[in-house]
């Protein structure tokens, strides 16, 4: 066990009736580390992060936040966590600023923090817009803003850029990069975009069918893999990027 880890996931299992969503996952996240859970749809990413978020309970295994379990510490954990769910729809007829105000109040924060966050996620111009009238990218930035209100120590983002066009995606990345530079936050981000994992995260965990296929830093992943692959006949050199790595690991594309 790593004493410095802010999140520890130990041998966690979770099933829904006959579906084994998560099958024996182990993870450790260090302070101010950014981790990507990378995997195709149905890999178990959402189930895994929601268990870390305390929204779902594992069938077996253990999840510790700063060395402590969820049970009995919920109040404390909620205060230091920020998150965005895979699909949340906020109240349609509430304005952007009003939505931030509402969520800020849960953390005993006032209007000033909402102003800061609005600037941070670049929604100043949409301040008075109804949530229902926002574009996909603006909605994701609002969700991100809500997640950042309490300056979370732990940030958990479930597919924050899925469905966005490249421009909107890059805007979200810029915000997260700034956050990384401030280095007071640990983040787990799920995605099925290679580029996102490469760009934002120090450590990448490749998941499929509820298990971890491979994990490491980007150079590690690409390097180790080449050693394994040398035995194979059709070997054409080390994978140049995660896309190729994923195909090598599973024999299929990530976006299928």
């Amino acid at each position: 066990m790593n004493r410095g880890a802010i999140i520890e996931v130990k041998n966690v299992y979770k099933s829904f009736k006959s579906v084994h969503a998560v099958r024996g996952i182990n993870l450790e996240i260090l302070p101010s580390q950014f981790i990507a859970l990378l995997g195709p749809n149905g890999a178990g990413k959402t189930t895994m992060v929601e268990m870390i978020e305390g929204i779902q309970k594992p069938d077996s295994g253990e999840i510790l936040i700063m060395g402590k379990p969820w049970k009995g510490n919920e109040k404390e954990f909620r205060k230091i966590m920020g998150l965005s769910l895979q699909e949340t729809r906020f109240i349609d007829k509430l304005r952007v600023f009003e939505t931030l105000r509402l969520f800020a109040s849960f953390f005993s924060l006032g209007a000033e923090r909402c102003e800061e966050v609005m600037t941070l996620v670049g929604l100043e111009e949409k301040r008075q817009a109804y949530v229902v009238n926002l574009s996909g990218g603006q909605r994701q930035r609002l969700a991100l803003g809500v997640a950042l209100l309490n300056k979370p120590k732990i940030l958990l983002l479930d597919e924050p850029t899925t469905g966005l066009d490249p421009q909107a995606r890059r805007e979200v990345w810029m915000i997260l990069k700034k956050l990384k530079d401030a280095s007071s936050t640990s983040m787990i981000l799920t995605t099925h975009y290679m580029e996102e994992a490469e760009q934002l995260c120090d450590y990448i965990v490749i998941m499929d069918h509820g298990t971890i296929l491979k994990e490491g830093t980007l150079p590690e992943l690409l390097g180790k893999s080449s050693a394994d692959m040398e035995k194979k006949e059709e070997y054409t050199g080390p994978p140049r990027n995660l896309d190729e790595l994923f195909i090598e690991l599973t024999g299929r594309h990530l976006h299928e």
Partner: protein
Amino acid sequence: MIFLFVHCTSYIVHSIMKTTMLKRITNSPLWQLILANARELLREPAVLFWGIGFPILMSLGLGVAFTKKKDVTVTVAVIGRNHLVHAPSDSVSIIQTFLMKNKAVLKAGNDGSLSRELTVPDEKLGGTTYIFRDMSWKKAMVMLKRGNLNLVMDEAQGRIQYHFDPMNPDAQLTYLKFSKLMKDPELIIRPSEAEIRPLDVTGTRYIDFLVPGLICMGVMMSCMWGVSYDIIEKRSKKLLRRMIATPMKRSNFLVALITVRMAMNFVESGLLFLFAWLVFHITIQGSVPALVLFFISGNIAFAGLAVFLSCNTAKTEIGNGLINLVSMPMMVLSGIFFSYHNFPGWIIPVIQKFPLTMMADGVRSIFIEGAGFSEIMMPTLIMLVIGMMFFTAGLKLFKWH
């Protein structure tokens, strides 16, 4: 008007917000939740229509329909010879003489048939228009069976004979009115005199019965759709899940929702009453503070029920079904539009235990019978207990995601 009110209050609140005390209130989760719910509600035009416009239209429609004296038209079949047009002077019938003398208007129908119409105005009971038509006995029977006429006349040996179903009160009424007219044709120009005094003292009219019922129905519907449906929708949007992933107190969420709904119900009911007071001169005969207390307890009963109904499902279709399942029987049975005392005796004690019946009976007793605190004490307590029970059970079973 409500918009204006909200704007004014929020303006006032903002202008004094510099005080830290008020800042603490406006930053509080409960206040922000209340604001969010109120904004959501007031920004939905459909809500304003169903909550305010619809009950008022309904009271206007039903109130006018049942308050105004109705003019009726009855068809009377005349059997045998042609009574309606001029006949050879040697064989003038009694009916013919009567119709000529009183200037019954001759009319031709599309099919070439002739009829005579005679209108007897009546200020107090409503006028009656008789349509006399010549026809064969066979045709008269067909029309009688179809309900197109209820009185058949023929004439033999200088006497009029009336044929009708004595079990049919309408037929009896037509017979009584018309035979009286035959004896005293003067009634046509000298309508019924002062001996009839229509009872339209406040409190005894249909509208007096209807408006309290509509108020209670409004509260029920508003809680069912406003609380139940709202919760289910937020659950299906995963908004509840997102909210409890913050330090938000779960009870605050429900308290805010119910508070806003109750305030809205006060406004809705108030406006309906205001309207009925202006148009139909409805009054509250009993104690107003008792009414307010009773109204609140009714709101709590339905809000509790609504939380219970919505505690477990994330499917709006299921919510829809549940709401209808609970509210429909009450709307039909609880005597909102017509007294439930017309139902069979065995079912009445059951009906009386429905929350809507309890509330409607109570509100009516204050409005019409002049009831006060002592009369509504029991139902107030019962409704509070119902509300609390359902609320507690609902909260126990409540699924936040």
